[in-house]
């Protein structure tokens, strides 16, 4: 794959594509069709799938690279989504994403459960390489890679991950029946996790480094009213202790500096997420928040033909509905861009 950038740096070398692709494509079926796609969408959260629905309906035959294990994005790890308009009684996150996927497929979107390993975004024809070596070419690319969980950055976090340290309450809450556990964070997702975990745990300590929550009022109230949730304000976690599994946390009062220890068997980390820009950070302009820089209310990035949508451009709102709306914006921008190229 090392020769790719050379091969594809010029848009006129299109017919070379086929021979280049066969090299890493020893696995049957790995070489792509020779077509230059109108649009390839990287990512499959609300932004990616909404972009797929709109571009498919515009007859742009989108290819969605949905990811082998991350398809559906962050909502796949949630339970009830209560604030997505149109669902009176709420909807389960995985069901919502399943619906979006099927809606995109209904209009002909080509959804592939593969991971992108590299992109070349310069020039009129962009290339996107997936893990088995297949190279897809496209006139426009939408980057909707979302965000990834932030880690605490503590020395024992990695070692005890899977042994008491978790990022997914819906996956792991079950293992903490009748136990005392902690959640770190102060946003909606932290409170959602804490509330969900009270179904299993005896007691959930919500640890927040400030003296008020960032979370919405309804979530805030839910945490304050829950008899199983105890809140530690102005507190940060400075250490995770345990030989083979989590036994306790070292805490520090952010006001007084006083240190203490809290005995828990589980620690759920919900301190936010960072935009997933690894694939594109050397090719696209980023903002001070490390999101992909876009022009005003559009999805236009620093390179022509490259559009970005969803959490990867959004340091502020990061809701399912804003991501979906942003995917729609990108789809319409792609439509206009391609129409201008063709006219």
């Amino acid at each position, binding site marked *: 794959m090392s020769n790719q950038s050379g091969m594809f740096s010029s848009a006129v070398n299109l017919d070379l594509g086929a021979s280049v692709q066969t090299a890493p494509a020893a696995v049957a079926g790995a070489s792509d069709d020779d077509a230059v796609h109108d649009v390839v969408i990287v990512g499959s959260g609300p932004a990616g799938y909404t972009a797929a629905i709109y571009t498919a309906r515009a007859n742009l035959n989108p290819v969605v690279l949905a990811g082998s294990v991350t*398809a559906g994005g962050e909502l796949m790890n949630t339970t009830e989504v209560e604030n997505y308009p149109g669902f009176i009684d709420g909807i389960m996150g995985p069901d919502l994403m399943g619906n979006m996927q099927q809606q995109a497929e209904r209009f002909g979107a080509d959804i592939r*459960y593969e*991971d992108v390993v590299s992109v070349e975004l310069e020039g009129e024809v962009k290339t996107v390489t997936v*893990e088995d070596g297949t190279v897809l070419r496209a006139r426009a690319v939408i980057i909707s890679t979302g965000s990834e969980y932030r880690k605490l950055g503590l020395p024992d976090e990695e070692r005890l991950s*899977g042994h008491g340290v978790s990022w997914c309450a*819906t*996956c792991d809450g079950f*293992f903490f029946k009748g136990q005392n556990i902690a959640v770190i964070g102060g946003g909606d997702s932290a409170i959602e996790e804490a509330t969900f975990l009270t179904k299993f745990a005896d007691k959930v300590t919500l640890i927040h480094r400030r003296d008020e929550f960032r979370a919405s009022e309804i979530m805030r109230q839910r945490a304050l009213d829950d008899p199983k949730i105890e809140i530690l304000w102005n507190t940060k976690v400075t250490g995770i202790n345990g030989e083979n599994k989590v036994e306790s946390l070292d805490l520090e009062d952010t006001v007084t500096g006083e240190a203490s220890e809290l005995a828990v068997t589980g620690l759920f980390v919900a301190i936010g997420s960072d935009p997933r820009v690894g694939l594109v950070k050397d090719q696209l302009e980023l903002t001070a928040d490390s999101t992909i820089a876009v022009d005003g209310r559009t999805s236009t990035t620093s390179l022509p033909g490259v559009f970005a949508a969803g959490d990867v451009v959004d340091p502020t709102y990061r809701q399912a509905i804003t991501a979906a709306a942003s995917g729609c914006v990108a789809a319409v921008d792609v439509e206009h861009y391609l129409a201008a190229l063709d006219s």
Partner: protein
Amino acid sequence: MSAAKDVTDATFQAEVLENSKPTIVDFWAEWCGPCRQLGPVLDALAAEHAEQVDVVKVNVDDNPAIASQYGITSIPAVYLFANGEVAKTSIGAKPKSALEKEFGDYLSPSA
């Protein structure tokens, strides 16, 4: 979830610990989203490395004893057993290439 054979608290000893081949165990549950995503990945891994390893799955809901014996608190958890012992562990849903890297010692034909 994967199409792998179900192993239970009752059959774990015979199917995994006493298996002469290295065995990859997928600890999963119905309610775990990432477990569902990982299933097809493990199926592909099982098909490609059928001669080197067996791949089985344990439903932690139905088989709490095994999960608790190995101190599992996060799923999907993928454990590789060799000669009756845990040889490698991998937590979370990961792409096939990542699993192949982590379990590489046991997947190559010479192993």
